[in-house]
């Protein structure tokens, strides 16, 4: 029991938010080790005691999956970390991951009353503390599975949506098999988000837990190519399918010169580095353009762009510059990433938009012709629309340019499943609550339904789908 917890409210409000210990920027910007070191136990207890246990906790309301934050924090204050972890898991099956990658400032911490006057309770850091404590304690009680139902479910895609659905469905006693196109499991968590933000061992640990619970995994299967949805249902006799294939298709700018050597999509750059470990070039065979002593620019303002620019820095870039057509305030990246990036010497060129890439006669990139932008009237997204400043053109020198402006739906399943309804952007149409698609027995969730979103939303969608699939398998009604 923390003594501080018995402090009167007024005293508790005076405690300042505990800083997450971080690796030294000068050192970490040259390696791939995790930046955030995690809160020591004493600090976690102090931080937890900052919670004022308000009657209407905004943190719970603003959590996309409604994690019972207040109760979790109370259990931390009581020193019962494993109970806190169990409470967390009631709503969130991937806490060690979301504790690291959720945009807390727009979610739980954004709703925290303490944050209205000072800094909000560091809910993300506490979540991570609890999840890591549980993992390292080795006392993660894997829940027992219900008796076998003799029903089987195919899950397509092993990102957070697929993994969390698998965990819930196996517990209900169904046979569960996850099909993944790549050779590694985890989706964006392994090929996109870099090691310095989310160590791969954590994702692997989650996968191993699922394996131990009985989930089967088959890698190297591209559904739509290696096998179709209809074949899974009719020939391999799956009673239901959950499509969780993410929004994997990279969007390019469509400006001249994008074919020059040195221009990458963020997906390709990050995949080469994370999944194929190009950062350990001596040991691994995967090549990536040598960033050492080169100028790198990354286009975009989201997490993907931020990950790419910080990765290029770690690969030795002389200058690593983020080019974004709006201003700081509109950047969708997590606040912590922006802070870390600045500390690591990333240059930010806001209100700047590349209009052409230029290269030498051998086809190697030498720079980007950019224009300056200013913010005009708000657009459909509610953000002020960037408009070009006439005559503001200039050239930004670059040997590597990485495009991280977004992704869209991968069409492989949709194009081979004619009775699966899609919207005009080719995302799969699924009911918001039941996650049912237009095709009997087929459910969909995560980025393939919503478009590129967040890990927590994909996780939530996976769990909703699991509940709905269980209902379908039990009642047999569509």
């Amino acid at each position: 029991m923390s003594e501080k917890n018995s402090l009167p409210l007024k005293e508790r409000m005076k405690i300042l938010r505990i800083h997450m210990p971080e690796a030294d920027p000068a050192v970490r910007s040259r390696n791939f080790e995790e930046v955030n070191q995690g809160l020591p136990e004493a600090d976690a207890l102090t931080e937890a005691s900052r919670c004022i246990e308000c009657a209407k906790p905004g943190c719970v309301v603003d959590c996309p999956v409604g994690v019972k934050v207040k109760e979790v924090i109370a259990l931390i204050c009581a020193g019962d970390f494993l109970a806190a972890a169990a409470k967390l898991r009631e709503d969130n099956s991937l806490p060690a991951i979301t504790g690291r990658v959720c945009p807390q400032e727009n979610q739980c911490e954004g709703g925290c009353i303490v944050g209205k006057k000072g800094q909000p309770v560091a809910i993300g850091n506490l979540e991570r503390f609890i999840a890591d404590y549980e993992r390292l304690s080795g006392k993660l009680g894997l829940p027992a599975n219900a008796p076998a139902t003799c029903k089987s479910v195919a899950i397509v895609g092993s990102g957070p949506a697929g993994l969390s659905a698998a965990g819930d469905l196996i517990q209900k006693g169904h046979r569960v098999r996850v099909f993944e196109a790549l050779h590694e499991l985890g989706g964006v968590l392994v090929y996109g988000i870099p090691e310095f933000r989310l160590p791969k061992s954590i994702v692997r640990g989650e996968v191993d837990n699922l394996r131990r619970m009985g989930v089967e995994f088959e890698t190297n299967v591209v559904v739509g190519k290696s096998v179709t949805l209809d074949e899974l249902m009719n020939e391999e006799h799956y009673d239901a399918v959950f499509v969780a294939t993410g929004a994997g298709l990279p969007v390019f700018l469509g400006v001249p010169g994008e074919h020059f050597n040195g221009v990458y999509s963020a997906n390709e750059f990050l995949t080469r580095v994370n999944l194929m470990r190009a950062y350990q070039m001596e040991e691994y065979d995967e090549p990536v353009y040598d960033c050492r002593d080169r100028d790198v620019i990354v286009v975009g303002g989201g997490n993907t762009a931020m990950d790419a620019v910080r990765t290029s820095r770690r690969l030795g870039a002389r200058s690593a510059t983020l080019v974004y057509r709006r201003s700081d305030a509109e950047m969708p990246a997590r606040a912590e990433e922006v802070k870390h990036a600045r500390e690591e010497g990333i240059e930010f060129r806001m209100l700047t938009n590349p209009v052409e890439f230029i290269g030498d006669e051998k086809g190697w990139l030498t720079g980007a012709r950019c224009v300056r932008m200013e913010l005009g009237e708000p657009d459909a997204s509610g953000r002020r629309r960037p408009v070009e400043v006439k005559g503001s053109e200039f050239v930004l020198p670059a040997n590597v340019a990485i495009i991280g402006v977004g992704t869209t739906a991968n069409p492989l399943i949709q194009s081979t499943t004619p009775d699966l309804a899609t919207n005009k952007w080719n995302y799969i149409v699924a009911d918001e609550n039941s996650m049912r698609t237009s095709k009997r027995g087929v459910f969909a969730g995560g980025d393939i339904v919503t478009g590129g979103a967040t890990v927590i939303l994909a996780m939530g969608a996976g769990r909703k789908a699991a509940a709905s699939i269980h209902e379908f398998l039990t009642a047999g009604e569509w």
Partner: protein
Amino acid sequence: MYKILDARSVGLNIKQFVIEAPRIARKHQPGQFIILRIHDKGERIPLTIKSSDPQAGTVTIVVQAIGKTTSLLNCLETGDSILDIVGPLGKPSEIENYGTAVILAGSVGTAMALPTAYALKKAGNHVVFIEGSRNKEMVVFEDEVRSSSSETYVMTDDGSYGEQGLVTKKLDELIAAGRKIDFVLAVGPVPMMRAVARITAPLGIKTMVSLNSIMVDGTGMCGGCRVLMGDKSQFACVDGPEFDASKVNFEVLMQRNAMYREKECASLKQFQERWEEQVAELREELAAKESHHV
């Protein structure tokens, strides 16, 4: 893990593997390819499927040792395994009864063209197969080439076998002789495919080329395989690998394929210096995985 049921040398530095991969065998159509990775630290490389046997659950691929990965792969023997194989990827060839179809293939490109040649013949085409290689040692699958086509020409650069000259020389001859050609497929080195396109485009002959751009995932996720078609980008792994030759920007393809040449050379050199060691390490890694699986 995917078992190699048969590995044999079929030409100078060219090896053929029959691999157990039931899912791929069941779905393979002419023109499609696989991507494989041979060990945990290996890169993913695309290779075309020469044939498949859905009943036996096997696919046959042909590998020319060029870089490190292909050299290491070609050290594997019957009984060894391949860590990861994914496929079949890409769009199948468009098979129609065009009339007279001419296929031009250079060295290992022959293996890639074979399934399409068979399918075109079966669809009723008069198939003319022009196989080209540098020399006699590199002429591969001649028997199959003959049985897949109605008319066959073998060309070597040095004249050590068949007729002397490039495949395009034979194409020029056929055109000069007034042969009516309705469809052309060219598979091989980029300069060869470009040369074919330059001959057939002015004549308006429908010509497809199978593009070997650098790939990572093969599912449309990275865009690294993009090729320039006119002023539009397309992804070779999902929109191809076959494209209308008259639209392909071959210069950009060559330039992009050269992107990692320096590193590839260094990596090959390092492999050649200690290849025996590396093959032994690979076998050890695979054996460890095998026992882990059981």
